[in-house]
């Protein structure tokens, strides 16, 4: 966990693309929305893992969103239900349903479908939001935060000092 946080801090303060961080967070959000244990989740995870973005950001955002995502299950159920029951998509889903292996994706489950639909819809807003946030951070806050008295004081707290040392180690390794 500390290592993930450290990697995220390093990435935030390095020359990595803001889109890499934002994409990691957006994929983490998508993977948190879709319930696990089905082929769809595995496929999305494999794609997300293969893409060049910040894995630490993906795992951290997935863990963070998962901790409260069940609150939105009734909403996902309704959204998924609307899509799955839609007469316009009926033939499409029927065709999907009859393709070998696709039934293992559980796409016909209202929460899986709701999570997928909402995740895809919100992927871009989340992505751009975090691209913007990272840019703003780097431009306005990064140097100020690093040199602030508060940060210097808090670095002396044992767990934070451990985190700082991890960051420094990773910074040496990182480009």
């Amino acid at each position, binding site marked *: 966990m500390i290592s993930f946080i450290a990697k995220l801090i390093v990435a935030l303060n*390095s*020359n*990595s*693309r*803001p889109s*890499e961080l934002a994409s990691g967070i957006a994929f983490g959000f998508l993977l948190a929305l879709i*319930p*696990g*244990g089905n082929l769809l989740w595995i496929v999305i995870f*494999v794609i997300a*893992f*293969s*893409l*060049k973005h910040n*894995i630490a950001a993906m795992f951290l955002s997935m863990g963070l969103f998962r901790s409260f*995502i*069940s609150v939105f*299950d*009734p909403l*996902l*159920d309704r959204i*998924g*239900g609307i899509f*799955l*029951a839609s007469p316009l998509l*009926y033939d499409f*889903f*029927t065709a*999907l*349903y*009859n393709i*070998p*292996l696709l*039934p*293992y994706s559980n796409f*016909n*489950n*209202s*929460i*899986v479908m*709701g999570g997928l639909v909402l995740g895809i819809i919100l992927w871009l807003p989340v992505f751009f939001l975090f691209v913007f946030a990272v*840019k703003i951070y*780097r*431009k306005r806050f*990064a*140097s100020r935060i690093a040199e602030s008295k508060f940060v210097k004081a808090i670095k002396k707290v044992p767990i934070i000092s451990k985190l700082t040392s991890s960051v420094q180690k990773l910074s040496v390794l*990182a*480009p």
Partner: protein
Amino acid sequence: MKKNKIPGIFRKKYTSKTLNKKIIKRLHIPKDREMVKKLFKENSDGKMEIIQDIPKEVLIRLKPLAKSIKKNKGMVSRWKASILIFIVAAVLVFNIFFKDRLVKNAVESGLESVFNADVEINRLKLSLIKGTISYHSLVIADAENTSRNLLETGPSEFRVNIAELLSKRIRIEEMSLTEFRWDTQREVDGALPGTSPDEQESDDGKTGGTLDFLSVGRDDIDFKALLEEQKDNLISLNLINQGNEEIDAAADKWKNTYTEKNKEIEILSEDVASLKSISIKDTGSIAEGQLALQQITDLYSRVTETKADLVSLQDDFAADRKHLMEMNKLVETSVDEDISRLSSMINFSSGGGRSLASSAAEKYIRNRWNDYYEYGLKALKVYERIQDRKQEESEEKKGLRRDAGRVFIFPGSDNPVFLIEHILISGGDDNSGTLFAEIQSVSSEPDKLSEPLLFTADWKSNLSGISLNGFVDMRSEVESQFEMEILSPENFISLDNGVPSLKIEKLSSMTDLSGFSVLSDEQDGVLTTLSISMKDIDIEQADEDGFVSSIMKEILDDMDQVDFEVEILAVREGLEDIKVSSNIDDILVERMGEYFKEIADDKEEELKTELLNYIAPSLEENKALQSSMATLGVESLDQISSVDGMQNVLDAKQNEIQSDMKSGVQDEASKLLEQATDKIKLPGF
């Protein structure tokens, strides 16, 4: 000292556009970007080239920046793709080499959770290409009796349809189980670690049945065991025990009450004794007399009050005692009630021999059917455990804090999610008999099938055999959910214990059996009707010249065959009811009715004696308690009598004082008169 060189990426010459695209845009820290921009100058060719005079601290910074620029190229990370490819390859290799073991462990643990007992599979092989699973042997222990196996099979093969499996449906085209055996001995205990054997049915599935004393033989009825079993239902015993408790409580209550009253009487008695010693005869003082009278009057009123209390208590005591005596009277009638009820349980009503042969047959059928019933019940338990597992699994999924959601089903293949098309079972041997069974269309969604679950089974041994044909139809809107035809011709049966009440020591015959089982919705069980014909009956009798023996021999010589009609109702709790009627019953009644009536009367008398003996300790206790109550009654009378005595004493004392006072007053008056006469001189005297 190592000389810092400019990284290659910065040494190249770029056009203004390419510099921006390949270098500047790949730097995302504004400060770094500005720094690199300042390092490039346009040369004479119009290209952007890095300046040579670079400060040392900037030179050091260029190396990591070059790495960042390289890293920020492209969308797919090669090392991540390599990791994924490696993981997939590792999983595939692992599956190829270890899949059999993995599947074996998965199947074993799955079956163990269903059967709740040890399961062993040997040499399991899974072929994904062929779509087959085979094993050399499977042994499933019996959870209810872990020293035995529920079933075991030899080499078996399951043919799975892979195309269906890819569509998330399990379709086993054929399950072929050979060397099938059940209820076999185990060498090691079959209990799972941390589990205890399932609780045995205490009633052996015979709760609803009655015992027929004629069929089980005179000495077979254990009256003591019967009374012990029916202890809670014995009205007489319960009444006595209840009475004893009430008497005990009443005795305690009255004992305490009378002890209190005794103390009160003692105080009164002392007061009476002290008053008794008062005498005004000598002093003759009227004032003293009046005081003593006042004391007597006060004490008298206390004594009267106490007496009234005692009389009232005696009435209450008498009422209590009357109630308890009435309970005791009820005991006598309740003994008769108990006898009548127990007699009906033991079916003395057939004492006339009305259903004699039927009762004998019932015992035999009950024993045989109970085995089939228990196996049926075990199968039902396994089915229920599978259902429970599904429920538990869905609850476990809920435990992941995500809702289950709704599943939308789209038209697709009409095949059910789970289907076993054919199960072929063979087993047994020449000694125990051979078994062949075939089951078709076992499915989780029976409505998707055009036919119900069909089954046939044939078991044959040297002496007997049985064929079962039937179906289980779980489809909605069907007329009948279960039917089974039973055929068992030419069976040799032998009753080694004979029929003691008919003086038959051993009986054997050839028997034809046929029948039909259906689901009884009204009674929520399986109703089986059987027709049994016994031919070539051979009996062994100890006393061939005796009355019963000779009549039995005559009857059986006259009859070609003895027919029985049987109705068996099996419910979840056990064999609810077995009704048997026979063509031999009426003949036996006619020929031996009186004889059996006598036996029945004797047995009823014996039962009564046993019951009286059984309740005797409670009755003894009852007598002792009654006696203690009687003692309390006497004490009550004694107390009243002693209070009466006090009243008499006080009456006497009052009279005595009054009399003394009267004489004292007269003496005083005479003296005063004399004194007055002396002092007053009357004229003329």
